[in-house]
């Protein structure tokens, strides 16, 4: 197994891990957003709560959840390790910074954006996931007898500070994805004049759609409850 640690602990291998987990998390975001959009169906949360129930009781999903958590964990740990190591590579900083025009702001701040997202993640998981999974009695049930996560979501976004925090985090997510999506392909060695333009284009569309979607929900609920 020496070859595997040699690979995974090399700078190239670490980036491979970041790319694979990053792209995996991108697929998760699609599922997550699809679920969230169900709150917009005007049925007092029937569909959404049913979906939440399905997600927390189906055994395949429960298994994938473990994979998802591992993905998050790997992405976060590896990201933090890289951030620390990369900073150590330049102990004395430059007095004057000037990035070339072709260098995107996102790409220079992936560590910062990632850290912001980590903070968000801790709060977010604590708020919705932990409550609905481990103390569902606090949330009450809806007419179908499912845990009423819908009410909790709607209620959360009646608070301005909470909504702003959420919005800020989603903007950070947008910048993170803006660079991360296409960067992942390069870390995997996938770059060619034939398909890279398509990758970049897809990444941008994906980022805009996902970010816009995640931004729309809190703003919608906040303004609905004014």
């Amino acid at each position: 197994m020496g070859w595997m640690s040699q690979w995974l602990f090399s700078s190239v291998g670490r980036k491979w891990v970041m790319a694979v987990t990053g792209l995996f998390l991108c697929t998760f975001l699609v599922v997550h957003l699809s679920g969230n959009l169900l709150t917009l169906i005007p049925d007092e949360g029937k569909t959404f709560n049913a979906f939440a129930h399905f997600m927390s009781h189906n055994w395949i999903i429960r298994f994938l959840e473990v994979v998802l958590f591992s993905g998050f964990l790997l992405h976060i740990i590896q990201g933090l390790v890289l951030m620390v190591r990369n900073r150590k590579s330049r102990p004395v900083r430059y007095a004057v910074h000037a990035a070339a025009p072709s260098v995107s702001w996102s790409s220079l701040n992936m560590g910062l954006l990632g850290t912001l997202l980590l903070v968000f993640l801790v709060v977010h998981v604590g708020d919705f996931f932990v409550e609905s999974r481990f103390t569902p009695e606090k949330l009450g049930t809806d007419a179908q007898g499912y845990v009423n996560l819908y009410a909790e979501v709607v209620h959360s976004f009646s608070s301005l500070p909470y909504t702003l925090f959420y919005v800020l985090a989603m903007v950070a997510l947008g910048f993170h994805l803006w660079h991360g999506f296409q960067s992942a392909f390069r870390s995997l060695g996938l770059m060619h004049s034939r398909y890279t333009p398509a990758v970049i284009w897809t990444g941008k569309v994906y980022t805009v759609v996902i970010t816009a979607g995640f931004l729309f929900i809190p703003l919608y609920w906040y303004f609905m409850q004014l």
Partner: protein
Amino acid sequence: MRLTLKVWRQKNSQDKGRFEVYHLNDLDEHASFLEMFDVLNEQLIREGKDPVAFDHDCREGICGMCSMVINGRPHGPLTHNTTCQLHLRHFRDGETITVEPWRASAFPVIKDLVVDRSAFDRIIAAGGFISVNTGQAVEANSILVPKENADQAMNAAVCIGCGACVAACKNASAMLFVAAKVSHLSLLPQGEPERYRRVKNMVAQMDKEGFGACTNTNACEAACPKGISVTHIARLNREYLKATFLQEE
């Protein structure tokens, strides 16, 4: 023209270092950036002060020795350029210019603007070659190389080893330098037998030297005097993956 220079001065590797400010008058806008330093040094010598040490040799943009971060950009504000071929006409009269050495833990400062780049030599020694002793070669035209491959290999091989990629990268990563050599040699049939050993050994040495990892910011490509493309970094990643899973034991 007149310029004010804010130059990093550091007596030796132990010294903490600091900026010093110099004023230069009567500069010719057609003089090169290094010729301006010649003028500065003559001035300092006349004043009985210690001249600024800086690396330079060919002054025609090919030896890769010159190395200054000028207003936050390695080799200055132009693209596809080296410090020695940067001319004062690209600055405004009266401008203040900050000049710093390459900054990376793998490139320790020796004095003033001079840094130690021997890490690059060690990376090449670890695998940046094709093992062929003198006399072992076959007839040159018995090796066919598609023109496209030769051109691509040349695009990578033009690297001058100056280290601007490292200086520009927020992680002080040497990926573009390493990738250029890996790419150059793996694109040619002559490099085929050692392609897996090469990429693994070079990356291992790169990590050992303390260079950072690649965040794909493209800062290296923008700073590279020879405009070497980041596509070579993708090729390195590919080669490394292949080496990990396809190399025969």
